[in-house]
């Protein structure tokens, strides 16, 4: 059995605790091992994105424990979390979240700027490598607005991969794309998985979810069945 990559215990998240409280997560306990390809599915509003952003350190849980790469998140400072995000986590968003006034290469390079592990001289080489991986080596100088949705999402994936993270978190990466592009992006993810990247994928598509190793279904903030 592969090593445990992340482990949560009874995670909860309550929005607006002072006004009308929204219980987005009601005690989620799960374990993800290295090398897994996990799909998270469920009805709209059930808490998928909330869970993913807590797992990806973009938000904090209201209560519960969360261990990532052996570190207990409750004990970490903001800067340590930033370092974890930088080294161990790669993010892919539904709306790509590229910076529009940076070129593709600059967007992809961005995480390296906050990471001392890679010497500056290797930046271009790395950028070329990951762009090659996602099949966009000819678009390095283009701006995001000059690319199609599918191409933009590949840039976002390249950006997520550039620091060689342990886990890739993707929140409906194909939500804005047609089914053909959806399949292309998914194959790219499967490729990465085959090369050893752990992937957590939120998706509405039954089809995609079934191609994953494991499906977590969430309903109203709780995990219904872990297959």
């Amino acid at each position, binding site marked *: 059995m592969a090593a445990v990559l992340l482990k949560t215990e009874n995670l909860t998240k309550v929005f607006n605790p002072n006004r009308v409280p929204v219980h987005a997560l009601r005690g989620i306990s799960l374990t993800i091992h290295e090398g897994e390809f996990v799909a998270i599915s469920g009805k709209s509003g059930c808490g998928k*994105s909330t869970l993913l*952003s807590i797992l*990806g*350190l*973009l*938000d*904090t849980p209201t209560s519960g424990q969360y261990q990532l790469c052996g570190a207990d998140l409750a004990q970490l400072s*903001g*800067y340590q979390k*930033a*370092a974890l*995000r*930088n*080294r161990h986590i790669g*993010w892919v*968003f539904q*709306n790509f*979240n*590229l*910076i*529009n*006034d940076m070129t593709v290469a600059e967007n992809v390079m*961005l*995480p390296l*700027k*906050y*990471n001392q592990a890679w010497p500056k001289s290797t930046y271009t080489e790395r950028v070329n490598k990951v762009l090659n991986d996602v099949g966009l080596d000819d678009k390095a100088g283009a701006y995001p*607005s000059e690319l199609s949705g599918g191409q933009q999402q590949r840039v976002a994936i390249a*950006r997520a991969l550039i*620091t060689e993270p342990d886990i890739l978190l993707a929140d409906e990466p194909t939500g804005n794309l047609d089914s053909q592009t959806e399949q292309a992006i998914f194959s790219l993810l499967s490729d990465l998985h085959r090369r050893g990247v752990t992937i957590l994928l939120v998706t509405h598509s039954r089809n995609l979810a079934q191609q994953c190793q494991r499906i977590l279904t969430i309903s109203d903030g709780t995990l219904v069945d872990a297959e």
Partner: protein
Amino acid sequence: MLSDIRYGWRQWRQYAAQMALLVIGFSVFTGLMMLCVATAPDLFKKTPTWVTANDTEYVTIGLRSHEGHMSQTTLANLSTVNAHPAVKDSSFLGTVVASFRINDQSFNGENVVFMQDQLPSLLGITAIARDPIQFQQSAYVSEAFLANWQGPELIGQTVLLGESETPVKVVDTIPQSLVSQPGLQEPVLLVSGSHFSTLLTVDFGDAPLPDAVKARARHMIMQETPNLYGVVTLRAGFSSADLADLSKGRASKEEGISVRSGTDSMDFYLHQGIDFTPHATNALKRQWWIMLVMCVVFAVLNVLNLLTLSINQCIQRRAEFATRVAVGATPATIQKQLLLEQLPLVLTCLGLALILTLASLAGLVAYWGVHIDVMTLVLGAVLSALVLLAAVSLSVLLPFSLLARRQLFQRSRSQEAGPMQRRLGHLNVVAQIAFASLALLFAFAMLTQQWQLRQQQAAAPAAHEFSWSRSDNVNNGIDIKAFLNAVDGLPYAVAVSSKPFANPDTIASSVNAETPNYDDGQGINLISVSSQYFDFFNIGGGSAASAANREGVVLNHAALSALNLRNSAAVFEQRLFIREGDELGYDDEQPIAIAAVVENLPHFGFLNREVAMIYGDLARLHSINQTLYLYVDVIHAAALRQWLQDRQQRQGQLWQFDDNGLLIEQMEQMNQDLNRLVMVSVLVAVLICSLSITSLFYQLSGLLQMRQRRMGVLLAVGARSYQLFGQLLTLLLALTVLAMAVVFITVTMMNPRLSLMMGADMLAPAAISLMLAILVLLLLVSAAVAFMRIMRRPIRQLLQ
């Protein structure tokens, strides 16, 4: 439409703090603007507003006094002017200190205005009888006199004028238009000019003169005493320049009675239009310009603030605009909606401004003595409203059209602001920093000045000031030598000077070393002082100066540096040429030796810089037509007062001494004026500064909001918050440097004028360093708060 306004109101409530700022800023602006517009016609029309005819037809005639003001002229001079071919018609208006009697009550030494019979019709003063005979039998009293009058109904009473007790009848109060003429010093009574000679008080002593001689003397005195201003109308085709060839004043000698006007050396003062105190009017105009500048400052500041708000709104409402376009709105309809949304703001501002203006009009205009009619006030309000609307439209529509032009509606998903909007935001921040620092610099310069004055005041000697002057003009002035000799004989030290110690209005003369080339000479103030002066005021280098100043002039350090001379032995080899040398008793073009150099005297109260001074020996002047000032230690004040009193009694009524009190009290008095000025300046500065800093804060928040998704991305890929804050500070630093460049260029340009006008030195190191310290603090705090407000949110939200 109504729903747009209501929607706008809801929008405004979201931005309550910014709204409040805008209302304050716009109200101040509108108030100032209305005041400016309302006071302009009276101030800039050369004839008073109630005179309907053409400015260029009138010329006011007076005498040019030493200080360049217009002072009153004589009847003789006026008839010279009258003989000039350019003059069609002439008239005069003057004041005398006279005595009169009503019933059994006598009034002595009251200010009486007299005007020639045709003047009311010349000036269009309808409130005064136009029929000369009727006017000659009438008198008008001041409101104050009427209010204080105790006894039977004053209107209708008979007034007996002067010694000859010429009867006139009180018919009304003095017309407001005459009372508020700045030159006329609160007259108590207004009568026809035909009573001028009656009103003159002439003391013939006990000399047994025949009545005919007395009458002739009285007539000549009337001709030669400078008591009046002339107003002439010009013939068609002539201008005031045609009168310029009129000669200087004359002296006359007739039948053994010698009369000198004492103003013989003065030129005519010709002022186009009707204004008896053009100098005072100019001071008012200067204040008016300051007000206008303030008005523009607030206008720019307001537009910037509104711009901040609408840029921020535009970014936040992008999705709303996109939706509106999606359901069929055109950019034009959205622009209309945006404008309608501003109506609550505009109306609130106008309302508040109206209250503000009326309040300040009541105070300011009474103080200024400027006429305002309701129509100009309405005009002011309308103009202000138009400017306000223009400013609002500009600042609301500009960011929107930038948004529309970039066609961001179609891509409303993208939350990033366009580079144009960001640049606009940066520009705004630069302007706000510049405004804030200018305001701070000004406030600190004023405070520094006040602090320096306090120091000076502490150093002021414990001296008592008296003045000794002629109370009329029919004499040779004071015989200085005799007077100084008498003073020297006193058993205590008395310093004498030709100008007062506190706040003297000296002549700034062009002075040059080596050659009598006055064109590029420095303006240096001249004063004549007695030899004890420096010793008395305990000035460094004073003893030497006291001994030496009979040999030449004494310079202070400031004068030395103004002339680019160094304080060494070589300086005594220098010869000075002083254009107004005769002020100090030297001939034209006479080379003058420097006898000594003294420290800068502390006596120029309201100036913060040391004033360049040249002191001459009072004994060089044979006579002086003005006042002498005497200084004595407080313990001898009573003795000197007694001495002056005796002297006055011995020399007769024409001589007068005044007890001006302790110097320190005079300084305190000046200080109070300054305190008020400083308080107002600091208040205005604080207002401007808080307006711009608050607006800067919102603009920074807006800039961060524009970048919030970018910040979210950076945080998601592992950036640390201090790195982002560092980016913000770097941006802010760059903008601050830019703003400082603007500020220092501006200050360098306006500092000389400002230090002349207000005495505040904006380039004083103390003011600059205080300003920088406060500014940096304010910037850091507002940047940190704005940053924290964004960073408080979870990263997930930044990315949405």
